[in-house]
């Protein structure tokens, strides 16, 4: 590639990637902005202040989303950490891993539609716990797959060694496995957090509109033809992942 074309291409890409966030930021501060204006006619902070009033309660939604995502992330990461270790030792290792791929590749909203009747039966539809459990059903297999390549010979040998030296299983997790696995655990925690944080279809289906997580609210404002508040809510949704990008960009590389 010639340096000039390369630079142009690079600039083009940069603008394409930055554009969505920049556009939404401007939209959230614009009094009104429609065809054929290239830029909003006036800037205002009213949508942001409005977003945090009791009517929109975006802060509450954000808290709810954060809570659900944090819970799902913790639970699925640790559950998957244990089960992937057992799987590594199991005779049926590959079959067990395969079973994690099914919920992982299925469209979450179709998973919700297919299992909705059971959620209703259990009285879990329209509840925070139900939505969190549904998120868990897709975040957990993801974490299992993430960990599946992690349990290599070396790690298992170290674990076995610790056992031979008399460490109980609790001690082995605390003293050997967790410290060794800090990196991959952090990765799984953040990525399962994002899976839950970004999930819309499943949340809206299982939530029955009673669990106003942030994505559901964004959709609501879009369909209410209230683009400015939708932009505010969208930015709230983008903020935590951006923070992650700043902390460690590796956390964002995930398949879903």
């Amino acid at each position: 590639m010639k340096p000039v074309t390369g630079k142009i291409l690079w600039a083009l890409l940069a603008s394409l990637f930055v554009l969505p966030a920049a556009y939404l930021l401007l939209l959230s501060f614009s009094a009104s902005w429609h065809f054929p204006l290239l830029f909003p006619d006036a800037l205002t902070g009213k949508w942001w202040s409005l977003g945090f009033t009791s009517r929109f309660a975006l802060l509450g939604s954000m808290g709810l989303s954060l809570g659900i995502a944090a819970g799902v992330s913790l639970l699925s990461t640790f559950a998957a950490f244990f089960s992937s270790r057992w799987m590594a030792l199991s005779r049926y290792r590959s079959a067990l891993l395969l079973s994690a791929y099914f919920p992982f590749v299925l469209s979450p909203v179709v998973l919700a539609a297919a299992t909705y009747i059971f959620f209703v039966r259990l009285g879990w539809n329209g509840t925070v716990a139900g939505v969190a459990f549904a998120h868990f059903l897709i975040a957990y297999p993801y974490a299992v797959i993430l960990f599946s390549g992690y349990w290599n010979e070396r790690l298992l040998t170290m674990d076995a060694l610790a056992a031979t030296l008399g460490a109980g299983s609790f001690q082995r997790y605390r003293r050997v496995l967790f410290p060794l696995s800090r990196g991959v655990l952090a990765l799984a925690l953040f990525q399962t957090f994002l899976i839950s944080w970004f999930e819309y279809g499943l949340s809206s289906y299982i939530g029955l509109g009673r669990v106003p997580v942030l994505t559901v609210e964004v959709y609501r404002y879009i369909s209410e033809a209230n683009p400015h508040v939708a932009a505010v809510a969208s930015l709230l949704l983008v903020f935590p992942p951006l923070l992650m990008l700043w902390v460690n960009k590796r956390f964002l590389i995930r398949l879903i």
Partner: protein
Amino acid sequence: MRILEKKSLKIRYLHRKAGLTLHVLLTLLPLAAGAVYALLYSVGLAGSLAAGFTLRYWESLVSRGTLWQTFAYSAYIMGVSIVLSYASALAMVISARGRLMERKGSRIFYLPLAMPALVLAFFAFRFLSGGGWLASLAFGSGLIASPQEFPELVNDPYGLGIIFVHFLLAFAFFSIYLDRVYANERIEEQVQSAQLLGAGYRQSLRRVVWPMILRKTWPAISLYGLFVFGSYEVPLLLGRSTPEMLSVRIVRMLSRFNLDDRPEAFAIVFAYMMLTVLLVFLLRKSKGGLR
């Protein structure tokens, strides 16, 4: 002592078994239960419309061609999005010789990954529609005189808006991912040794780089493709009334006034589930597939 040891081993074994049982329950049970229910519903054996075994819902789906249409349209969106994004990402990575992410400012490649599909779809609508920002730009520069003259980029027949969003997400992902594969697999060194052996640059690309990268990234491509295939919020906002992508169609049919649509929707659910099961098995069988 030895008895105690044996006992503890046995307990550990049981404990592992319980954990793995739980694993199967969490991954397979909801799916299996959902699939069985969907199947029963679609043949008139479950649900409030159940009136004994019948194939008429399946027949009606097949005869109207809706089943194929939905699957074909989803496959089309998937194919175009993946091929475009993968090819462009690969071109970028190869031309940067696997050092794309070492460039200054390469962090912006991560930006789309920090955005949920829903938000990107919302942006795409505001950006690409006839009354959107690009149209305003075209109007300002005198290219169009009214929004009606702006080409259809969202809710359009070819799914351009949907493809745009999926492209943005997948291109960013593949760029970072392929760049890493290029470095990890020491592809640059292979290229150089191929060239030492007398291969031209193009030839080394075709014979060395391409096969190596493809073999290594095949599972990721397939999995990403399956996500695009089942995507929901993007076509929900940017798609048109017909044809619809799979997830959108299923959800719409499940909440329609015509109650006959419910068994048909469950038939599509079942068909889709079986298709994914089949694909996952094929993927595992294929060379270099799922571990």
